[in-house]
């Protein structure tokens, strides 16, 4: 087996992504959780760069940096103990969750290892050619799918605002205690 530089980088960034993914659920501080998820997604973006998907790698890193910053703010707003100073346990059905996670991992690894994926190609086009081909694909054959994604974003934005906006006549009636 020849160990290529690409394999080394895939292993490094893959381990980083998985490790930071585990840290998300291990730390008591919710801000640290959000930052760990940011590192996990950034490692994934770097993994995309290693896989020579340059456009997707940069997009992943930029999108996740913004998304996780917003998530950290929401964490501080909504969590009872965002700093994790009280070391509150905010988990339930832990045993079932661990079993489900491990079983899923083993099943997915079995699929990855035992299926014959056919001929493997290791040669890619240059990034400029790839991006040009993607642009032509998005505005050509896959335009309907691309436009549907745009409409879905618009619908989700309207739905999110409609759900989050404060109803009229409820301004002085906030923060009811749970029954």
């Amino acid at each position, binding site marked *: 087996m020849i160990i290529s530089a690409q394999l080394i980088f*895939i292993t490094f960034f893959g381990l980083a992504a998985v490790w930071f993914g585990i840290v998300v*659920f291990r730390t008591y501080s919710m801000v640290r959780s959000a930052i760990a998820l940011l590192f996990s997604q950034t490692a994934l973006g770097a993994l995309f760069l290693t896989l020579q998907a340059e456009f997707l790698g940069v997009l992943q890193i930029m999108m996740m940096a913004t998304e996780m910053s917003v*998530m950290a703010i929401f964490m501080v707003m909504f969590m009872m103990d965002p700093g994790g100073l009280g070391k509150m346990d905010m988990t339930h059905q832990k045993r079932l969750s661990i079993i489900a996670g491990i079983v899923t991992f083993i099943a997915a690894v079995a699929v990855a290892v035992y299926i014959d994926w056919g001929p*493997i*190609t290791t040669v890619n086009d240059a990034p400029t050619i790839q991006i040009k*081909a993607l642009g032509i*694909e998005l505005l050509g054959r*896959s335009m309907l799918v691309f436009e549907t994604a745009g409409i879905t*974003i618009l619908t989700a934005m309207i*739905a999110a605002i409609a759900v989050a906006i404060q109803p009229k006549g409820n301004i002085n009636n906030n923060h009811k205690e749970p029954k």
Partner: protein
Amino acid sequence: MGIELIMSLIFAAALLGVGIYGALSQTNLVMIMMGIELILAAALLNMVAFWKYLHPDNPAGQMYVLIVMTVMALEMAVGFALAIARFRSRGSVEMEEAVELKE
């Protein structure tokens, strides 16, 4: 067989397992969303690896990655909107307290 493809799929499987653990074990809505983000990240990694090692000449593979990234952003936007609505009406986003959803 391409060891790089297998390694990528194994890391995606690990992210999927961690994401499922997180989504099932956490009691806070925002933390559950973090678990779902990891599950979608695993799907992204699978798609990029398949595109790179099986069909690098077909840009439709990259297009599907863009669609999943869109789904990730939408999941966050709608999830946060639900969290705001829930926090306004009940003062908490703890799912242990959302027993009325069972009724």
